[in-house]
């Protein structure tokens, strides 16, 4: 029911978006340890409060976006393209 202001399409219902996971997760190199790879693959921060999340505007522009939102108050601080 939330509104995400897509930088390309304007304010749209969250039903149009698909949640991917945490933003800003660098992809480890091939020589990383099993633990590091598992951390990248499986672990989520699940922060209380301000988070940066990756969402895809599936039934809109299809672009990948970083949504800066508060998981407690559901306030949206900013939505920016993942790829600048």
């Amino acid at each position, binding site marked *: *029911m*939330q*509104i995400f202001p897509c930088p390309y399409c304007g304010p749209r219902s*969250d039903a149009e978006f*698909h949640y*991917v996971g945490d933003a800003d997760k660098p992809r*480890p*190199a*091939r020589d*990383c340890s*099993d633990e590091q*790879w598992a951390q990248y*693959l499986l672990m989520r921060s699940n922060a209380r409060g301000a988070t940066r999340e990756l969402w*895809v505007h*599936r039934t809109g522009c*299809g*672009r*990948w976006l970083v949504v800066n939102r508060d998981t407690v108050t*559901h306030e949206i601080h900013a939505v920016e*393209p*993942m*790829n600048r």
Partner: protein
Amino acid sequence: MSSIPRRLMTGGEIDRSRKLDFSFDGVALSGYEGDTIASALLAADVPVIARSFKYHRPRGLLAAHHEEPSAIVDLRLGTEHDPNARATLEPLREGMQLTSIHARGTARHDRLAIIDRFARFIPAGFYYKTFMWPNWRLYEPAIRKLAGLGRVDAASRTQAGPHRHLNVDLCIVGAGAAGLAAARAGIRSGRSVLLVEQRTRTGGALLWHDTLIEGTDGRRWAETVTVELTAAGVRVMTRTTAVGLYDHNAIVLHERGKEVDGLWQIRARQIVLATGVTERPLLFGDNDRPGIMLADAALEYLRRYAVVPGQHVLFATGNDTSYATAAAYAAVGVHCTIVDARRHSSAMDAARAVGINVIAGERIERALGSPRVQGARLSSGATLSADLLAVSGGWSPLIHLYCHARGRPRWDLDRGALLPGDAVPGLRVVGSAKGARSLAAALADGTEAGGGSAADAPVCVDLPFDWGGPPDTRMAQGARRVWVDLQHDVTAKDVALAVRENFRAVEHLKRYTTLGMANDQGRTSNINGLALLADHTGKSIAETGVTTFRPPFVPVSLAAVTGMRRGELQAPLRRLALETVHREEGAELRGYGDTLRPAIYGTGADAMLRECTAARTGCVILDASTLGKIEVLGPDAAALLDFVFYTRMSNLAPGRLRYGLALTESGAIFDDGVVLRTAAQRFVISCSSSHVTAMIAHLEGWREDRFDLSRVYMHDTTPRWSTLAISGPDSQRILRTLDIGVDLDDAAFPHMTARVGTFGGYEARIARVSFTGERCYEVSVPADHAEVLWRHARAAGAAPIGVEALGALRCEKGFILVGVETDGETMPHDIGMGRARDTRTDAYVGDRSLHTPAARRAGRRQLVGVATANDRPLPVGAHALQRDAGRRRSVGWISSSHWGVGVGRPVALAMIEDGASRHGETLEFEHFDTVYRGTLVAPCFYDASGARLNV
């Protein structure tokens, strides 16, 4: 004294010229247009309307609106059926057949009423202590049958309309005095306004109280304002309930009506809650008898429906507001007595002045009479006779929507009510819901919330609202049971029990006793329960805290939630451009993934076999238009593909095709498909049918994550092209008849290459790639022109083939289907494609996952073929069983199984632990108690060398 008629001759909103016949529990009754089911039952003097949830106690009407806990009926009218219709909310209609729910027999004579005799053995939480031995499961079915509300009838169908959406500046919930004032201020300040009202008309409490606003009676004022609002373009939605408030000022409404029944999703810049208050019942012995009613509800029934529910009415109260009701009843000639817990109030003097007997400083100790009330015993010991007890235990604002928005209510000791606490952005609560003490205050509050100033508020003769203070629990300790939650049959003794068992926190009290957990969400019981809990724990109500409210505010039918997403509309299938042609050809169409495709052409048990035979011996044509065609272009196109695909594509020469896998980051096969390179910087990915959207999202994500967006671009051309696969030993001859303008000799056009020609003046792309295992040409033409191509190929001798036959043909070749052979864990080396894992050093999606301990361990399920001596194919899903330390366990299963036309015997593919190194082993496969034997072989039964393809 002559008796007063149950229904007055004049007055009320009913139309006495339109009589409506209906029945209740088999008894024929009648009411009038304008009645609700409840008011009609009340007017008809039906003694018992319902039986309670747990103890099957006889119940009547306590209230007049959504706060009514007991009056739920099974409603039938024509084909319409509602097993849980709320009598107080449902307008009466001609021909309604109503049945009480939950009783065995009728509400009046319920064979299960005897349960109440055993009440002391089944208090709150009894199921944690009793009915345990030897096994709860023995008692559970019987107990569940005895509980519950209406019975669902599987044969009846309820349907609702589509969900509709609306954006407005101002959404006002509640069209009482404050709500109407807010709406008017809203339009005068130039905003778009939506006014939502649960009742069938606007006005709220103005409809049954005596008020004077802007020189006119409150009821008339409401009508005038409503006309003004509608003329100004306000959408006034009556019989519509705001059921939930969600993030970012989203409100969901449930609109009921003769033709419409559907949900609305509203987005409002500002929301105003003018939802009003509901009265609380009093706590005394046997306070759930039929004939005990909330005082304000008694006034509503009298004024709106002209029903007089009692000849001798005993009012029990602690606030002045009930006195207006008493005066109204006295005015129609009813004998009224008021018992007031307070010692003195000015209202008492006024009442006595008109001849009403007021007993001050007294309370009702218990109700007398069964099943219906016949009187009451007071705290003094005196007994009074009465056929209606009109009680008032204070008032509770309806702040549910405020709580949905995560507002935190606060306890107001003076009013004895939970009021909204801190403000929630974008939301304002006004009127009595906010704690207004008078009509003038409510009107001013509403006006300000709508964007006006208090000076613009409608002028009125001010009417004070006496709140009455906190619940009075003095009479809750007696010997007779005192009912707190009527809908879940929770008594004051149950609250005491919960505290004794240390369930002292309000959240625990709620869940242990189920107080407030019924579908009325504790509307008439929460605060009383809180007060009792506070008494027992020695805390104040403010310290005790309160549970929250969640949507929906009132029950919403699943039909309304579903809306139009039912049947075929729930998951609409895509259609092929050639669908009409396929139907003409006699195809049976089925949903495969998200598309409706031909399964088999023709009927009969061997129709599919004939298609397979034609594919292996002659020539067939398959509509393969669902195969994805994603074009990837740009200088970095090759680099993107190399990263996303496990199989390298950058070294593919232009004009050539390569089969490859795309993985997830966990190394599992995400999709397989064929990539065509048409030029140095141009590729076409032909991914699995119905996986196109997922594949595009997958590609796009990595494109945006790792690449300069100006250097690689992609778009989906799948719907633009119809692809027809012409396949079989005879396919080359048929291609020649198409005159495509391409040299079809094998030397010039080998397998796994592509050419561009023309057909009928349009571009035609031909790719030599096969899923059947025979020579095959996938011809793609613009979708609009595919029919000509189809008919031409058919005329030249190609037979149509469906998806089912294709499944059998590819099975004997060992060609996998992602999601059939593979699951969410299958990696490339499990299906014999482990080379890239060992040789590629550059980064690609899933690379690291292919080298984890899990990826490396022995015993991974691997693709094998399964041969059998049976004359019929092995069943799909049969598990291969092995004994391990005395226990049998599954080591894999059969994923595909068909009659192999090419080899003349059954063929199957399976994923078996270490299967690749176990060729020649015979295993037992079990399926539903039958055991089969199968031998593991290489996963290709037909033309293993590929000679029939590489011609």
